[in-house]
């Protein structure tokens, strides 16, 4: 049995039904078999009927039957990573001259999820818009490896950019999804199936008949992602996609994006900016920290330069109690909300052990040794 199928069966077994259904949908899409995809949509629809109550055995039977059939087509679950875009020393200065994006280089492959983090006004959106071809570069160049002698229209067709403030749509949401799929060449019955798939995949089916003004900003973001994904972009650029989402939706969307990037059906590169540092770090292959227009830190490269272990801590204990617990083996900083403990001698788990041993009440603890957070 293929690993992916095994994982899904495990989710089913441990009652992670929602996750299992999403993965079934992904797996059936990757088989590129419309019959399997339609069945997966039916499975998802039947799960949605019962998800607030007790899921009937019939659901598990149909899910397992479908998984078995998908398992017979798992030879299709392979894809070759390809280079999508190379940005070399791109620089952008606004006409007003009050901000400059310093030389930044970047490579994005299919399957990559690259996070861009940083404080407001430091150039995250500018970097994203430059790579999306929306802003003219002052110098440097962008090379789209998949396109031969492209014009800007080809480039913009090749990638998709979702801004933080999503432009208003008109007409029914489902019409918009059909339209987006159709303008990218997904026509006829396939269009219908793909729209149904995307609605199920992003849990949007109950809202499909509504209009823009009838849904919340979180669902607008989801619909925009669904719309863009139906256009099958090779590079997806999202500016602050988590801004309008609740905490659960943030996690769910990020995980979905991670899976979708590596989808066999449409492998793509994802470049996203966010203030949600830890959430992005969890799913991103590379995280860029942008400060004052420069790339201050890049995971996978500069993290090796870390010379000390750093943790974040939230506690009701006094500073004196903490210092006492650390026994002089760590430097303590307090920003008003939580403490940052830096230690060249103690690893995160050692620090945690000392705190527990010192009877320090802990409400939040995070190892940020390899996180961009330690630079902020």
């Amino acid at each position: 049995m293929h690993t992916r199928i095994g994982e899904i069966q495990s989710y089913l077994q441990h009652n992670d039904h929602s996750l299992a259904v999403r993965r079934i949908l992904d797996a059936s899409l990757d088989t590129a078999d419309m019959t399997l995809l339609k069945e997966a949509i039916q499975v998802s629809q039947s799960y949605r009927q019962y998800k607030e109550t007790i899921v009937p055995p019939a659901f598990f039977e149909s899910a397992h039957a479908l998984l078995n059939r998908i398992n017979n087509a798992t030879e299709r679950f392979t894809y070759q990573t390809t280079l999508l875009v190379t940005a070399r020393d791109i620089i952008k200065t606004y006409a007003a001259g009050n901000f400059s994006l310093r030389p930044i280089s970047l490579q994005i492959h299919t399957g990559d999820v690259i996070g861009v983090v940083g404080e407001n006004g430091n150039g995250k959106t500018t970097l994203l818009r430059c790579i999306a071809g929306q802003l003219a570069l002052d110098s440097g160049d962008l090379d789209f490896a998949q396109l031969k002698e492209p014009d800007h229209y080809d480039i913009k067709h090749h990638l998709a950019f979702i801004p933080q403030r999503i432009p208003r749509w008109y007409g029914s949401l489902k019409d918009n999804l059909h339209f987006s799929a159709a303008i990218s060449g997904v026509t006829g019955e396939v269009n219908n199936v793909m729209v149904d798939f995307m609605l199920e995949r992003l849990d949007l089916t109950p809202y499909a008949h509504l209009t823009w003004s009838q849904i919340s900003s979180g669902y607008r973001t989801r619909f925009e992602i669904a719309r863009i994904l139906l256009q099958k972009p090779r590079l997806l650029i999202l500016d602050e996609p988590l801004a309008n989402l609740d905490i659960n939706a943030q996690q769910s969307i990020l995980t979905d994006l991670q899976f979708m990037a590596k989808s066999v059906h449409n492998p793509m590169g994802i470049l996203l900016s966010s203030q949600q540092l830890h959430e992005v770090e969890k799913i991103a292959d590379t995280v860029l920290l942008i400060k004052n227009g420069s790339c201050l830190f890049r995971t996978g490269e500069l993290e090796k330069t870390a010379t000390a272990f750093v943790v974040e801590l939230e506690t009701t204990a006094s500073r004196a109690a903490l210092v006492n617990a650390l026994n002089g083996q760590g430097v303590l900083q307090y920003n008003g909300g939580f403490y940052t403990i830096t230690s060249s001698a103690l690893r995160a788990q050692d620090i945690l052990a000392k705190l527990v041993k010192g009877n320090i009440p802990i409400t939040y603890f995070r190892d940020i040794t390899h996180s961009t957070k330690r630079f902020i």
Partner: protein
Amino acid sequence: MNIERPLMPGFLKRAEQKLLLNNPGIWSTRIQLVLYYGILFILTLAALCFLEPKDVRANSTTEYWIGFVSIISVIGLIVWLIYLLRFNVFKKYGNIKPMHGLVSFILYFIATGIIILFAFVHPVVESIRANIAYGDEEIVRDVNDINFKLGQLEYSLYKTAWRYDTIVLKKSENEISEDALRYSDYNDLDTAKEKPLFFRLDSAGFYRTMSMTDSLIKMNDTMYLMYNTPPFDFVSGYSADDNTKTKVLTAFELFHKIHRHPPAPAAREKISKELNVLLHKYRYSEKLDWGAADVERPGPFARIYDKYQLEPVNSSISNVVVKKYRWEGRWLTEGVRIFYYLTLGITLLIFIFRHSTVRAFFLSLLTGVLLVIFSALLFSFSHFDEIAVYAMFVIYVFLFFIFSLAAWANKKRFAITGIGINLFVFIITILPIVIVGWCRAIARNRHYKQVDTPFDPKGIWDHYFLYAEIGGSLLLLVLLATYIHKVYRRWYSLPEN
């Protein structure tokens, strides 16, 4: 699909769905909805117009209908635009084919045309009603019969002395000018001979007047008395015979026909009855809005008009003829031109808006208005002649074209390039007309420098203008399929600054 539109039949819903899934470019123009609802509205409007409780002989109410229906057209246009502007394949960087621009334009043109056509429904229906009610030959025959029978019944009028003008052929230019001469009020030859008040005309005017006169007497080598028949044509045919085999008899023809064949006294009653039937057929009492009642007629003729109440008859025939032949000859050409240019103008604006940024579109409108004002001021203060005006227009087109070419040189999307493209697209259709106008102005100037004869008496240049109009449309279509589509694609997708 979430389609809950009223009056939308199942086949249209299926067509909508099919177009959306398979051809979003066509679907997004909403041509299918405009075609269906537009034709439905036109048919409903046509039925209403047919049922309008207004006599065919009455004054036309078409102006009021056009005004009212134009408001509905504007509303229809706005509703269509609301739907149209929701989806745009081009601006969403979808898959577009090389013919996308041309196909979109044609579909916008059809949709706009259908909406503009609303205003033409009532005039057309009114025309059809008039044609159903009265045949072409029937009107001419009736007019002749009425005039003939009136002549028979009022035979004494045929003894009225004819009125004449004394016309003298001018020998040289130094003689008194034509304008300074007075019209002769004398009705008998003797007075005319004694006190000849006359028109002194040059050879062209003299022979033209002579060709129109019904009878003449030569007084000497240069003086003629030119007689015109009294108005025995009581009821006018209002050019109803332009397209018929039977012609409306002139007063002169009526005179000859009746004068030689006076009616027998016994037949008068029968003639009178037949005349009443004919007059009743056309008489429709309505307030005359053109002041026909105030027309001055010679004494006995005015009496006839009153006696037989001919003014309403004349008015009715005029109304019927106007309605019947509204779409004949130059009226048809003018109607087609109004429809075509109105539709073209609106279509071009929609096409430009759909392919341009909102900012560039409105800046283009502003630039267009400013250029018109600037050009008008320039022409007013510099006393440019017609040739210079045409030349300047050609220069504008050339400049806009150069600006549009800059889209390939630019690395960024500049508004000025967009303005150039938009204005080029908007006026390219009339470039051939301007060039023909320019050539005609040059040819006419050259002609009048050499000779004093009328320029282009056969109206050949009118044909050239027609060819230019057709050529302009073809040029636009060719450019849409080749240059315009590419230049918008290039410019719109450029990165911003």
